[in-house]
């Protein structure tokens, strides 16, 4: 045991001797972790959205981007709401409300995020909810919520959310705000409930509308034009966008924006491992004489390698784990994928380096 402590102490002394290299490894690791952690989630989010919307995109969907003109008079024109409710009933539209819910009722749903989904085609935009095709009014709790039940009086219904959703439940948003349902309260309502909602909720539903154009009974040109006219009178200029064309283009833009961070960071990570490998080689070369003498005096190969392994642990694994852990603590779920990538790489390089150094030691001693 005493000898073990001695060997570990020597390993730490070696780190002090190669201080500059170890500090460089640590700093580069920190930079790599930071830049990958900040940028990779943007791409993975879009890639997940692209994957999630596969089924929706097969329906030739049209969504809307909005221009808000504050200079005009606004009305509470109901034609667009009626058209939307009608299309939702027919199953040729998907819509949801994710903002501005029950603004007059401050403690609604214990101040959690609320998400209202309507229509029989909800399964195209909402994932992980039991019986997504059914429009029976009901409510669910997100997997991270601690409450056992929440009362939700909305649009004339008195709903109570008791069931928790699975952890992978999430929704897709054509506007790029799709999210996991972990911290949400999710309400399913029949399309007719839309007519009984507040104006703010209706506006959010209009904004989040996706019309499915490949259904045989899809929205007519006349209705679409009336829908746009009515939204215009409400103060929102809607511009129809084809999601199947638009989303891959959005993905391309996001990749173009983040790839000059992600790929150079990964390249730098490889260089850091290269630096580490060369550090291991230098170390074995420098220590070889001493190791050989101690071997002649009866030290086993195992006890000799403790020193080298301590050094390698301190100079690679700690500099890699420290920033990863810090960022994982700070950025939470977003850092899971980059963190796992970095740690797996580090583990592989560590094992490879240890094995090669051990082999070199073994060969040159015997």
């Amino acid at each position, binding site marked *: 045991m005493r000898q073990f402590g001695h060997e570990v102490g020597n390993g730490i002394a070696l780190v002090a001797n190669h201080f500059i290299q170890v500090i460089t490894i640590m700093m580069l690791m920190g930079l790599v972790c930071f830049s990958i952690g900040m940028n990779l989630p943007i791409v993975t989010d879009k890639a997940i959205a692209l994957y999630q919307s596969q089924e929706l995109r097969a329906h030739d969907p049209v969504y809307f981007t909005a221009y*808000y003109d504050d200079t005009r008079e606004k009305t509470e024109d109901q034609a667009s709401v009626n058209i939307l409710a009608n299309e939702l009933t027919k199953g040729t539209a998907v819509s949801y409300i994710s903002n501005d819910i029950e603004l007059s009722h401050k403690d609604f749903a214990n101040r959690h995020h609320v998400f209202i989904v309507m229509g029989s085609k909800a399964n195209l935009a909402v994932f992980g909810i039991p019986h997504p095709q059914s429009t029976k009014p009901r409510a669910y709790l997100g997997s991270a919520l601690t409450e056992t039940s929440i009362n939700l009086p909305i649009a004339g219904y008195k709903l109570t959310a008791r069931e928790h959703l699975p952890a992978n439940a999430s929704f897709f948003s054509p506007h790029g705000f799709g999210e996991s349902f972990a911290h949400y309260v999710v309400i399913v309502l029949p399309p007719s409930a839309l007519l009984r909602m507040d104006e703010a909720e209706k506006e959010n539903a209009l904004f989040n509308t996706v019309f499915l154009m490949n259904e045989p009974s899809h929205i007519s040109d006349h209705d679409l034009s009336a829908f746009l006219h009515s939204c215009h009178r409400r103060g929102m200029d809607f511009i129809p966008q084809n999601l199947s064309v638009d989303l891959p283009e959005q993905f391309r833009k996001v990749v*173009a924006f983040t*790839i*000059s961070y992600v790929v150079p960071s990964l390249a730098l990570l490889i*260089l850091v491992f290269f630096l580490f490998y060369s550090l291991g080689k230098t170390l074995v070369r420098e220590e070889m004489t001493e190791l050989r003498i101690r071997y002649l005096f009866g030290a086993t190969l195992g006890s000799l390698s403790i020193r080298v392994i301590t050094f390698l642990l301190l100079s690679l694994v700690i500099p890699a784990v420290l920033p990863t852990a810090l960022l994982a603590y700070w950025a939470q779920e977003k850092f899971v994928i980059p963190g796992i990538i970095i740690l797996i790489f580090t583990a592989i390089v560590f094992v490879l380096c240890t094995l090669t150094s051990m082999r070199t030691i073994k060969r040159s001693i015997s």
Partner: protein
Amino acid sequence: MHKKLTAALSAFIFSLILAFLAFSVSEALNEIHNQSFGIGGEYTQLSIPQMANPSPDRKQEQEKALIKLRKYLADEKIIFISATDRGEGNPSVLVYDPLSTTWARNVKPSQTYVVKGSYFEELWKKKQNNPLLIESISRINGVIDPDASLQGQEYQFVHGLDEKISPSGKAILSTQNPEKVQHVQSLLSQALLQPQVLPRMTWKTALITHKEIDFTLLVSVLSIVACVMALNGVLEGLIPEFIIHTYSGGTALSITRKYIRHQFPTVALSSLAGSVFLLILNAMLQFARLNPFLLSLLLLSWLASTLIVELMLFLIVFSQLQVTFATNRKK
């Protein structure tokens, strides 16, 4: 493995990083070019926040000022293009081109066109009435094909400069003369707007707004540091082999020169692989539009990385040999 692989690996990684530096530079230049909405040459950017509609009597005042503005622009031969900000106002572009040199030459004042390829072009062709058109405009006069920087966005209409439509969003003037810009600004202020001149694009502001250039530059510098440290450790193991050459009369300089000449094909090929890797990635993800400018920058980055890695190898081996010879001589 070390002898060839060390140099090859550093060259590959380094040229990959330089290739991404080249890519981010070309992206930034492309974006800066797009900011001018297709006006070649010098230009000034103005930001015009959206204002509430004026009362009827002030509306007349605004119209008068906008007529004066058009007259001034015509006299001074200044091109004026303004486009609304994303999500604000009406998705339209306001254009006046007295020089008839840009894409906007076909736009006549006080006329309205739909943007080619937009949803409202389809509506117009089907002769349906248009939901988003401003009330004061009764008819659409045709289709226009605007500059690439205005396409693919949400703009639906192109208006010729008209006293009924007040500009908002971002405006471009085809002049940098401070007096003329000042005059246009004062005319816009008379039209009850609050224009502000945006700072001119210099290399400093370009670096501030395009962080990816800063980042790739930083990473390339850091990768030189990491490469030097790593190569220093690995190449030390080759010293005994180099020493042999001294018996046949080799000096530090001649041995090093021979070494890097020997390494040159490896380094050049691996650097090329780094640049090609970007192209392969692009073929998979389609993130960049290949153009001659980007390709020439990639070629440049290939040459630069080959040279820099060769220089690194030279300096490291040379200094190590010098040190070894000095210690040997002491013995």
